[in-house]
C-alpha cells in the first residue's frame, strides 16, 4: 500500500530534487548565461590562483619529505640528461682536435681523429636530441597533483596523499561530470542553432546571427574545459580577407581562438559526430571542408582558399601550418602552402601553461576521446594568446622565406624554440640535404674551395670557409621544401 512509504524516502527525494534544481540553476546563471552574453565573473581566475598556492605547498612537502628520508628527489630535468657543449662550428672543433701542431700546415688534411667529432655528436644526439622530445609532453618542475605528471609519487606524507585523493575526487566526481554536461550542451546548441540559422533567407541577418551563435557555443565549450585564456594585443585581431596562422598543440586550439573571434575553419570532412558538426556549421557560415580525395590536390586547395580570401565579406581563415601537434615548447617547420596565397597573414602565438594540465595531444599515445577525457579531468587549461601584427609577403621573398619569417615571429612572442625540422615527418627519414650540409662543411676543412685553387696562406683559407658557411643553410632549406 502506497501510504506506508518510509518518510525518509520522501525527504530524500525532495532533497535530491532541490539539489539538482539548485545545481542546474547555478550552472545556468554562472556559466551558461555569461557564455551567451560574453561576460565573466572572474571565478576561474580565483580558482587558478588558489590552485597555484596548493601546488606550491604540495611540492615543498614532497621536497621536505624526501630530505627526511634522505632520498634524492628525482627531478625531471628540462635541460636533459647531458650538458651539451656550446655549439662551436665544425671547423673550430676539428681544429681543437688536431691540436696546435698541425695548424701551420699549408694544406689541411684528413686526420684519423676527425671521426671523434662526428662520433661524439652522434652519441649526444642518441642521448638527447632537440626533436624527439618535442613530441612528448613537457616535464614539470613542480607537481600539480596529477599522477600523470609525477615521477615521485610515493607515500611521502599522509597529508599529501589525502590531498591527492581529494584532488582525484574533486576532479573526477565534480569537475568531470560538470564539464561533460557543458560540453554536450555546447555541442548540441551549436548543431541545432547553426542549422536553424542556415534556414534564414535574409543574408545579413544570417551572417549576424551565425556570428553570435558560433561565439556563444564556443564560449560554452571553453567553460566546459575550464580554459582560462588571456588575450594580448587584441587590436591585431585578424580581419576579413586574411589568413590567421598559429602554432598547433592540440585540437583545442581551435576552440581557444574561436572563443574570441569568428573564423572560417579548414579541414577534412570527418564522419560521425565531427562530421555532423561540420555539416551543421557550414550551413550558416562559409567553412572550408575538403573531401579526402581533394586534400591531395594542391591546386584545388589553393584555389578554394584564394577564392575565400578574395571575398571580403567572409571571415578570416584559420590555418595551422605545422600540420601536426607539437608539444608547445617549440615551433616546427611551417608548410608553405598557406603562404603562397596572396593576402595578409595574421600570426597568432598560443602558449599553454603546463602547470594546470598538459594540453598537448600525443596522437600516437592517446586517441581523441581518451585525450578529451584527460583534458576534462585536469584542473584547468591555462593559456595565453598573442595576436601579432599582420604580415605581408615582401618583394623578392618566396613562400618558404615568408613562412620562416612568420614562424620566427610566433616563436619569439610565445617564448618557443624555433626549429627547422618538419614536424609532420615524425617517423620518416631525414632529407639527405641535411646530411649533405654536414658533409660540405667537413669537406671544406679538408680540401678547401674547389675553384679557389691552392691557397698558401692558411688564414686566408679560414676566412673563405667562414663566409661559405652561411650559404649551405639557405640551400638546404630550399631543398627540404621540395617534398611538400
Amino acid at each position, binding site marked *: 500500500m502506497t501510504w506506508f512509504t518510509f518518510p525518509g524516502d520522501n525527504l530524500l527525494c525532495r532533497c535530491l530534487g532541490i539539489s539538482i534544481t539548485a545545481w542546474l540553476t547555478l550552472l545556468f546563471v554562472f556559466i551558461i548565461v555569461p557564455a551567451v552574453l560574453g561576460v565573466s565573473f572572474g571565478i576561474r581566475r580565483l580558482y587558478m590562483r588558489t590552485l597555484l598556492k596548493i601546488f606550491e605547498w604540495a611540492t615543498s612537502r614532497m621536497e621536505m619529505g624526501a630530505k627526511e628520508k634522505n632520498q634524492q628527489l628525482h627531478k625531471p630535468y628540462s635541460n636533459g640528461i647531458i650538458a651539451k657543449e656550446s655549439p662551436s662550428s665544425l671547423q673550430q672543433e676539428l681544429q681543437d682536435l688536431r691540436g696546435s701542431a698541425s695548424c701551420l700546415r699549408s694544406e689541411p688534411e684528413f686526420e684519423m681523429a676527425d671521426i671523434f667529432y662526428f662520433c661524439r655528436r652522434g652519441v649526444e*644526439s642518441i642521448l638527447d636530441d632537440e626533436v624527439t622530445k618535442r613530441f612528448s609532453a613537457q616535464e614539470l618542475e613542480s607537481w600539480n597533483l596529477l599522477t600523470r605528471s609525477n615521477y615521485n609519487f*610515493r607515500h611521502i606524507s599522509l597529508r599529501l596523499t589525502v590531498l591527492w585523493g581529494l584532488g582525484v575526487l574533486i576532479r573526477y566526481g565534480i569537475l568531470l561530470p560538470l564539464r561533460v554536461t557543458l560540453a554536450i550542451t555546447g555541442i548540441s546548441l551549436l548543431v541545432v542553432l547553426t542549422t536553424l540559422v542556415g534556414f534564414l533567407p535574409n543574408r545579413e541577418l544570417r551572417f549576424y546571427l551565425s556570428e553570435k551563435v558560433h561565439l556563444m557555443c564556443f564560449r560554452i565549450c571553453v567553460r566546459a574545459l575550464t580554459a582560462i585564456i588571456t588575450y594580448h594585443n587584441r587590436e591585431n585581431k585578424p580581419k576579413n580577407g586574411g589568413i590567421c596562422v598559429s602554432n598547433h598543440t592540440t585540437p583545442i586550439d581551435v576552440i581557444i581562438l574561436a572563443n574570441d573571434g569568428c573564423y572560417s575553419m579548414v579541414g577534412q570532412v570527418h564522419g560521425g559526430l565531427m562530421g555532423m558538426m561540420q555539416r551543421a556549421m557550414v550551413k550558416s557560415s562559409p567553412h572550408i571542408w575538403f573531401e579526402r580525395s581533394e586534400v591531395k590536390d594542391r591546386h584545388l586547395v589553393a584555389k578554394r582558399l584564394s577564392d575565400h580570401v578574395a571575398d571580403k565579406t567572409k571571415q578570416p581563415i584559420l590555418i595551422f601550418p605545422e600540420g601536426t601537434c607539437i608539444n608547445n615548447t617549440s615551433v616546427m617547420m611551417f608548410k608553405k602552402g598557406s603562404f603562397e596565397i596572396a593576402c595578409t597573414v595574421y600570426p597568432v602565438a598560443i602558449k599553454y601553461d603546463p602547470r594546470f594540465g598538459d594540453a598537448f595531444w600525443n596522437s600516437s599515445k592517446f586517441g581523441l576521446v581518451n585525450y578529451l577525457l584527460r583534458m576534462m579531468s585536469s584542473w584547468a587549461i591555462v593559456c595565453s594568446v598573442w595576436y601579432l601584427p599582420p604580415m605581408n609577403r615582401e618583394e623578392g621573398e618566396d613562400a618558404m622565406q615568408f613562412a620562416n619569417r612568420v614562424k620566427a615571429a610566433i616563436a619569439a612572442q610565445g617564448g618557443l624554440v624555433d626549429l627547422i625540422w618538419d614536424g609532420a615527418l615524425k617517423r620518416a627519414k631525414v632529407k639527405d640535404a641535411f646530411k649533405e650540409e654536414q658533409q660540405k662543411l667537413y669537406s671544406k676543412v679538408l680540401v678547401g674551395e674547389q675553384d679557389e685553387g691552392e691557397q698558401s696562406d692558411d688564414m686566408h683559407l679560414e676566412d673563405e670557409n667562414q663566409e661559405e658557411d652561411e650559404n649551405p643553410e639557405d640551400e638546404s632549406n630550399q631543398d627540404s621544401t621540395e617534398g611538400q
Partner: protein
Amino acid sequence: MGSKSSSLNKIPNAQELMQETGFSAAHILRLYERFEFLDVDQRGELRPEDFGAIRELSMNPIGDRIISAFFSPGKEAVDFASFVRILAHFRPTETNRTRDGAQPEPANSRTRKLKFAFQLYDQDRDGKISREELLQVLRMMLEMQVTEEQLQSIAERAIQEADLDQDDAISFDEFRKSLEKVDIDHKMNIRFLS
C-alpha cells in the same frame, strides 16, 4: 608520460651495471627513461629503426656506423645493459682512480675510447683498418663533395702517415700511436648531468 616509480628495482641488474660502468643511480635512471622513450614499441630492446628515428643522428654522416656500434655482430637488437655499456665509453675519464691489475679496465679509459673509435673504422673486426675500410669512412664523411681521386689521395696520405710496419693497413697500435697527441679524454667525453 605517466607515473613511473623512481626506484631502481624496475631495472634489471642495476647494481651490477652501476659497478661496471661507473654511472650513478640517477644516471642509470635517466638512461633507462631515455631507453624506454626510444623503444617506441615497448619491446624492451632497441632496433636500428628506433635509432633511425632520431633526426639529428640521421643528419650525422657516420650516423649509421654509430648505430651499428651498439649492436654486437649478428645481433639485431640491443638491450638496456648493452646500451649502457656502450654509453659508458663516453663518461669522462677519472685520472685519479686507482685500480689494481685484477679489475677489468673501465669502459671510459683512454684505451677503450680509442678502441671504440677504431671499431667505427674497422667494420669487419679483423683488428686492422684496411685501405678499403678507410675509404668507406671517408666516403661517408664526404660523399659528393670530393672526387674519387681526391678520396684516394687522402686515404693514401693517411695510411702512409700512420702505417709504421708498412703492411698497408692500420693496426690498433698504429692507430693509438698516431693519436698520441690528441686529447681524446676531452673529445670523447659527454658530461652527464647529475
